[in-house]
């Protein structure tokens, strides 16, 4: 019964990842890729300040986007599960799903329309006589990339948070309150720990998408806001160097995995487990 899906995954997932990994030890003459066992590509990634900066910035932007998405999504998820908006929950969740399924590229285009140099917000401010353009600093910057990615990924964070929070019996919180916990105390010591699994999956999902993105920085980030994904895509495109592109990609994935792993270990040390 697993044969069709298993076969598909073997041929089009495991083998391609293997080929890509093998490429990262190969070389190119500008026309063809030759397999090899050289660590040159990884040496380039590790020693070049350019690639180091790009990878570091990807991890940093990914973490910021993950944290901001959760901070923004949590109150909404709380409102429709344990909070006062439970009856509107279905409608709010439907809106979130519509946003989630709206094309990534359309949402990036929409944000560029708002934030870009001739963006609608800048024009409104100028028309209202606001001196200088506060958006000049915002457009084509790291901040523009982060804002856009957060708005794209908030719906991704809402779903695991909603699912985790809806599994918490309100009686648990009521019990803590009746035993003398303040509202904040009950929230910090009952609700958040019980929702930790949802928080961790929300962070992992949003972090991976943001840190591995190349579209938003390409279309909204200036030269100072490019991410490692852009370096990978350009190695697979214009500057034909697939082995180097592959080495950048695997270095990035390895460090992303290491960061998530460390986070899980730290949380476990603090007594918060990824499983209830």
């Amino acid at each position: 019964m697993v044969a069709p899906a298993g076969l598909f995954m073997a041929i089009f997932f495991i083998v391609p990842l293997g080929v890509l990994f093998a490429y990262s030890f190969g070389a190119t003459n500008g026309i063809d890729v030759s397999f090899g066992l050289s660590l040159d590509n990884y040496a380039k990634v590790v020693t070049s300040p350019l690639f180091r900066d790009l990878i570091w910035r990807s991890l940093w932007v990914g973490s910021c986007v993950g944290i901001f998405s959760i901070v923004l999504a949590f109150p909404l998820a709380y409102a429709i599960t344990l909070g006062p908006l439970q009856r509107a929950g279905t409608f709010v969740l439907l809106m979130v799903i519509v946003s989630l399924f709206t094309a990534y590229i359309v949402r990036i285009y929409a944000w560029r329309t708002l934030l870009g140099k001739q963006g609608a917000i800048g024009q409104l401010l100028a028309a209202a006589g606001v001196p200088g353009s506060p958006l000049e600093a915002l457009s084509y910057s790291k901040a523009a990339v982060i804002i856009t990615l957060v708005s794209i990924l908030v719906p991704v964070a809402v779903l695991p948070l909603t699912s985790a929070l809806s599994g918490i019996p309100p009686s648990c919180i009521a019990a803590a309150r009746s035993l003398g916990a303040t509202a904040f105390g009950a929230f910090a010591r009952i609700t958040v720990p019980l929702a930790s699994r949802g928080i961790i999956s929300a962070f992992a999902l949003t972090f991976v998408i943001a840190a591995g993105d190349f579209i938003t920085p390409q279309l909204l980030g200036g030269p100072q806001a490019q991410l490692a994904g852009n370096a990978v895509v350009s190695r697979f495109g214009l500057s034909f160097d697939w082995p180097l592109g592959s080495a950048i990609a695997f270095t990035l994935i390895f460090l992303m995995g290491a960061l998530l792993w460390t986070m899980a270990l730290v949380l476990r040390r603090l007594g918060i487990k990824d499983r209830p």
Partner: protein
Amino acid sequence: MTYGRASIIAFTTYTCVLLAFLFAPIAVVILFSFDSKGIAAFPFQGPTLSWYQAVIADPIIRKAALNSVIVAVGTTLACILIGTSAAFVIARTRSPSTTAFAGLMALPLLLPHLLLGIALLSFFNSIGIGLSLWTAIIGHVLITLPFLVFTLSARIAGIDPQLSEAAATLGASPAKAFATVTLPLIRSAMIGAALLVVAWSLDEFSVSFLTIGSSNTLPIIIWGQMRAGVSPTVNAISALMVLATILLVCIVHRLADLKFR
């Protein structure tokens, strides 16, 4: 739990502001798709449908829309064919190998699409397969299959296995038990998951971009127009794509009562 007036107002305001943050940019784009100026900038010059006429009249955009639909339909059919049996296995059997299989199926969800795209690109290149709509369909199946499998397996896990056992006891063949008992119970979930795969595939950009070669889909047209800096029809294309998404999600919601949580 009861909530005071202040917290109801606070939560309602917050939810509205957050939804506005999600939808305001899209609303602006839709608004400007009806403006005769053709770029998304104030002031309005007057309402027009000419951008929609331009979209419909443009053969390149029409071709890209057709490609988008072909890839979405191909992806969805392939996902259902490949994924349904896998969903049954994940829902109905408990063993270390099932857990490993479920983990493998979930893995593409945890990797950036960029990595999946360049892996497929390298794979097709190394075995000498040229890029086409077919390779793009394979890329789309790779990213949507986990979604379909886990949505379906969640529904299947909720069905009492004794129902099909009862059918078997009453003399139904396994095929008949499946067709008359199990399939009707999962049909709504299958339709819902399939429509969401359609929506996802229509909107997918990064994997298409890396695996489709020289063909276009609508998201690739938008990318190209944005890169070129001239985007007279992007507003209208975007508005039509948003409309398609809203329609598909609402149909799923009405028809399939899929629980999104």
